[in-house]
């Protein structure tokens, strides 16, 4: 697989002969996390980076793979998405579609799953998916602020209550700490597991404050805050380490 046929997300990582810097991928990952629709984008960028660093990476099978419906989907930076079966053989290659994140699990990044990641790549994956979790916290905080500005209780917008204002502040504090943990995970591969666990826990905490700000309305499926929380839980179970 050469450099031909690049396009779409994969081309984001094509500017630099040495692949994207991890921190840049984290920034993109955080942005991606702000949208409840997850795509193979993040895994694709990681795969691109690893391929640039080591052309043999594909042969070793160490590319991110996502699970959609019952199929395993391996996004890679060639012509789209490779569909692989459980044994890792390519079944089909096609264009990329967006899908609800809940059905998209980067299966290959699960320690112990096939194909497994080595320690260095696992650490990078932890750092990058921790950044996705920060994006999840971002969007919930943004929505919570908007909600606090419009929701009326006791004859005034709830943004007027200091308890609500301080919950927004606490959501911000946790979100900022989560981002710091994600950045640190990218710098300290030797303890990326601990950093990622902190990032997921803190992103989760931030989202919890946001749900509380929303009150009962935030607890309904229609409002959709659970998508973001669920994404953090899902990533945590895949990439969180010891806490």
């Amino acid at each position, binding site marked *: 697989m050469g450099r031909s046929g690049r396009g779409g997300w994969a081309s984001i990582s094509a500017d630099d002969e040495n692949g994207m810097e991890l921190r840049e991928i984290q920034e993109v990952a955080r942005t991606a996390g702000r949208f409840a629709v997850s795509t193979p984008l993040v895994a694709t960028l990681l795969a691109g980076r690893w391929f640039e660093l080591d052309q043999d990476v594909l042969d070793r099978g160490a590319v991110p793979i996502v699970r959609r419906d019952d199929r395993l989907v391996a996004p890679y930076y060639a012509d789209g998405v490779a569909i692989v079966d459980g044994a890792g053989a390519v079944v089909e290659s096609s264009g990329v579609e967006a899908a609800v994140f809940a059905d998209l699990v980067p299966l290959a990044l699960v320690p112990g799953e096939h194909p497994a990641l080595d320690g260095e790549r696992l650490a990078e994956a932890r750092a990058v998916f921790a950044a996705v979790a920060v994006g999840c916290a971002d969007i919930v905080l943004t929505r919570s602020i908007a909600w606090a500005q419009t929701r009326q209780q006791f*004859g005034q917008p709830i943004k007027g209550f200091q*308890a*609500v204002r301080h919950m927004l502040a606490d959501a911000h504090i946790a979100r900022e700490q989560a981002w710091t943990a994600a950045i640190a995970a990218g710098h300290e591969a030797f303890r990326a597991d601990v950093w990622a666990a902190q990032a997921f826990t803190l992103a*989760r905490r931030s989202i*919890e404050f946001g*749900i509380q700000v929303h009150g*009962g309305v935030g607890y309904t499926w229609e409002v959709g*805050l*659970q998508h973001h*929380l669920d994404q953090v839980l899902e990533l945590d179970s895949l990439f969180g380490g010891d806490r």
Partner: protein
Amino acid sequence: MTMTRFDDPAADRFRADVSAWVAEAIPAEWRDGRQALGPDDVQRIQRSWDEALFEGGFAGLSWPEEYGGRGFGPIEELIYYEESSKANAPDGFGRIGRVLAGPTIIAAGTEQQKKKYLPRILDASEIWCQGFSEPGAGSDLAAVTTRAVKVDGGYRITGQKIWTSFAQYSTRCLMLAKSSTELPRHHNLSFFLLDMEQDGIDVRPIRQINGEQEFNEVFFTDVFVPDEDLIGGEHEGWAVAMTVLSNERGTTEAATRLVEATTEIDLLSSCCSLDKPHDAVRLQDRKELLRWHILRATEEKAAGEDWFTAGSVLKVQWSELIQDATRLGIDTRCPIHRDYWRHSYLASKAMSIYSGTNEIQRNIITDRVLKVAR
């Protein structure tokens, strides 16, 4: 203190009675094959459980004997919850009637209302739901906008209620509605015993963030309530609601939540993936504290203190305890109970919101318990 205390021999005897009865009363198909039951079977068993409770004498444990209750206190309620939970007993549909509607009618109803409704609550021939919360009112319960317009012989009710458990099975609704657009806040609401079996009522399930549909929205359009089903005096609904919510709901709810906390924390303590066992020990200690706090509050309530002096503290306590327990459940990343903890964790997010948000509870404590004027 002369009331039943938790460590009294009488309490121990009652516990033994409950335990024996529950073991006997649980249908075999529930005890032995719950996983295999379909939704219709489950519903049938829930209904039969309401009847079994009545026949066994365990409906209305804390109701006065003159109304068909057993005349016990919340200690016995707590014991019942603990023992039935240990035995994995089913839950009926009659709960709102037994813990909310019944006590309201006993406290504020006319003799006629008591005679008409209380027996049907106890034997679960009528299932009740509550019509308090509204999407627009939220924490500000006094801001309900469902209208009760006076007409000849009664009222016409129009509006939307939310978080209404059991609405799809209910024949009656304990309804709080705005009966005056002119009277001041807190003096403009009335409380009704509304017939759910009439046209103009639309029940729609709410899907919660954990995917379940435990609650409903209910839309009322020009629904009639006769004068005799007004309870507690016209425009005096707020006072009735406050008494009911603070005195009755608190006790039973805390007991129920204690049982939930016990389930979660026991599972945690035995989890194969719990690598820091002391975290679970601390939760066990907090759970024991909650249990004793309920006992203490019960004693103080019997001694004449308003429930709300303890109710708000309990609400904050159980909601934070269960939320912390489910967080730890997620953190175990237990491969066996992964879905269980995800579900419990998401479900627990509502606990700091419903029954009065924890922020409202803290307002109540400062306003009404510590009496610090704003």
